[in-house]
């Protein structure tokens, strides 16, 4: 069980959350000025790294907040977590 520190509720089991996915993907801010290729890149393409992965989780059984989480996909270790607007860095 991955323990995810919810910035609001504190550490909780990951089965209280719904996994959303890659948080490095930023939805095009001006859709009218977005090319089909950029939409394609946003919707379909993923870096999918082995190691630190910035991702969103939704605390669906808890406070219903979306969280940003930096997690190692090889070890499942959570390196940092925060609100969607936070810039996360792995602790050194």
């Amino acid at each position, binding site marked *: 069980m991955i323990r995810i520190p919810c910035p609001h*509720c*504190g550490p909780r*089991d990951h089965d*209280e959350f719904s996994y959303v996915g890659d948080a490095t993907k930023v939805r095009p801010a001006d859709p009218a000025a977005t090319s089909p290729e950029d939409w394609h890149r946003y919707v379909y393409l993923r870096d999918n790294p082995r190691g630190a992965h910035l991702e969103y989780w939704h605390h*669906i059984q808890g406070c219903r907040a979306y969280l940003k989480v930096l997690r190692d996909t090889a070890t499942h270790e959570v390196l940092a977590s925060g609100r969607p607007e936070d810039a996360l860095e792995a602790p050194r």
Partner: protein
Amino acid sequence: MAEIMTLPPRRSALDSVWVLGDYGIPGPSGPGVTIIRRLGLGAIQLDARRDTAAAVARAVSDSLGIALPAPGRAASGGEFRAIWIGPERWMLLGSDSTGLEARLRAAVEPAGGSVIDQSHGRAILRLSGPRVRDTLAKGTGIDLHPRAFAENTAAQTGLFHLSVTIDRRRGTGTFDVHAMRGFAQSLHESLCEAAAEFGYRLA
């Protein structure tokens, strides 16, 4: 006011299954768990919107005499209880007859808050007794030990695969559990099965 006088009685989601009595294997000092339904409550959800949390909190404090609790906490004030249920979001509970929704609406909407009546959408059970923690632990992964979950702690979490609010009340072993109305019977069944080995009383 005339309408309120003639309102039909509220019907809880558990009316058809709630048969008072003692069940399961009682412990040495009687049932390990006693469960009561908290009926006829008003449960009003209060949302602060952008940058209004402080103003909303002030308005609530002024009108109801209760301080909105911090994340993960609950508080009592006067005849009301307030539970933090999400970022800038609280549930206020009080007796149905106090006009809670109207009072809140009047108080917080000018301050930038939103009010949503959820009184009928939640089933609220109060569990007490020496084996309450063991019973709840069969269905939730959060730590309910007094060291970790002190009085007036409240959590939004999962209980028997349902989303619930668990509100630790006064005393050593009294918890209120708020569940969605539609799942009330499922929760009731799960709680009763879990508590049966300790003995439980529906009161």
